[in-house]
């Protein structure tokens, strides 16, 4: 099993509903976010192109955060989901410094926090909160090993990219372009 997510940059309008849904679902402390929207405007006026991406932890297959963690608090859960065990986390910040996507943040309670792919929801057959609420249905989630999953199907049909693959992290968040 290999969980992954695909975000359609052509459909995303940058409404930030995914951000609010995540904050609500996961009780994210005020002032922090586990997912966020990035807008990249590129070109020369008036020939401009805009790309809107809903970003979060990439649940990398070669995750530097898991490698750097001195206590094993950051670990690979089933399906390659990268999770943090708050009872093992000492809050040293090594994983935060190791993430090229800066997807982690220090939770005010002391431990490190990040996107979990809504592990508690997918266990019960639900989609992650961000995917479930997206008004343009621009996000796809599922198991890459299952060729009929939403994410496998869309990655078969569309062109896609990952973020800074040259960092060697093997990210599992795909952006349809």
């Amino acid at each position, binding site marked *: 099993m290999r969980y992954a997510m695909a975000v359609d940059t052509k459909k995303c309008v940058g409404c*930030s509903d995914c*951000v609010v849904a995540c904050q609500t679902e996961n009780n994210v402390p005020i*002032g*922090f*976010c586990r997912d*966020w*929207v*990035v*807008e*990249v*405007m*590129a*070109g*020369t006026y008036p020939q401009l192109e805009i790309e809107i991406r809903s*970003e979060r932890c990439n649940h990398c297959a070669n995750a*530097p955060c898991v*490698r*750097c*963690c*001195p*206590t*094993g*608090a950051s670990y690979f859960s089933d399906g390659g989901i990268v999770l943090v065990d*708050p*009872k*093992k*986390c*000492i*809050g*040293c*910040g*090594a994983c*935060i*410094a*190791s*993430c*090229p996507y*800066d997807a*982690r*943040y*220090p939770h005010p*309670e*002391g*431990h490190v926090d990040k996107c979990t792919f809504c592990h508690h929801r997918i266990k019960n057959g639900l989609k992650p909160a961000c995917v479930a609420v997206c008004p343009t249905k621009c996000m796809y989630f599922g198991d890459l090993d299952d060729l009929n999953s939403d994410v496998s199907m869309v990655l078969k049909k569309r062109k896609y990219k990952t*973020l*800074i693959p*040259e*960092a*060697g992290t093997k990210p599992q968040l795909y952006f349809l372009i």
Partner: protein
Amino acid sequence: MKEEIIVSGRMNQMIDPHLNIWHWEIPLYLFLGGLAAGILFFAALFFINGKENTYPTAVKRAPFLAPIALIIGLLALFFDLRHKLYFWQLYTHIRLMSPMSWGAWTLMIITPISFIWCALNIRELFPKWEWKYDWIRETEAFFRKYQLVLAWAMMIYAMILGIYTGILLSAFNARPLWNTSILGPLFLASGLSAGASVTILMSNIKKERKRFAEIDLIVIGIELFLIIHMFMGFLASTEVQIDAAGLFLGGPYTMAFWIFVVILGMLLPALLEIMEIRKYHIPAIAPAILVLFGSLMLRFIFVYAGQVSRWLY
């Protein structure tokens, strides 16, 4: 011209607009750890060489600063933790791929060794010192018998401690400025230089001061070579590392790095030490203090500048 504007909706505290997760505690610890490593390395080295009476300050007296530096450093590390009550988790896990795990276990070994080394030399400071209990006397006799083994262990662990302070940072591929294997040897050299300076500061034997000025001079030479080598590596590397080097080559940390670390912390003390070796009358305290200052600044500037360097996407 093609331009790109990136707007991110993320504004997490200590993460944005650039990483700011490590503050004064980490560079202070990296300095104190390196200093302790330098002191203990030379103490062990000259004990093994049988030079404890030629260089008594280095072997017997300077090591008293090592446990103090290590304890203050450990406290600084503890302050840095955000989930403090769980710190013991470091010692219920061995994570071979995590430099921080290596460091935690190295400190677990070298801190007691430094205490034992001081206990064996306690009569240097208090000539009439007597241990109160028999079991301490027996333990002392045991370690005295095996002091050579202890010295070897101390030398090896001092080197691991000194080099790991650099590897801790260089293991982070996410921060291009840190992501160079030069950092391990550079921090080790800087720690050795600081350790030699402490001996120069504390010694009242001319021969010993001169010897350590010579050692310091060689180590500073190595440091300068490593720094040049580091920039050559950065500038011949990918765009992110060229940008990272730019922080010191025209960027916001240029003045701080070249003035505090290279000129005041290396070139000037090296010049003063050359003059001292050539029998000019130089107060020994001057180059030593400059080296210690430069060594501290090296850690501060690298820890802060490294957090600014990043991948752009």
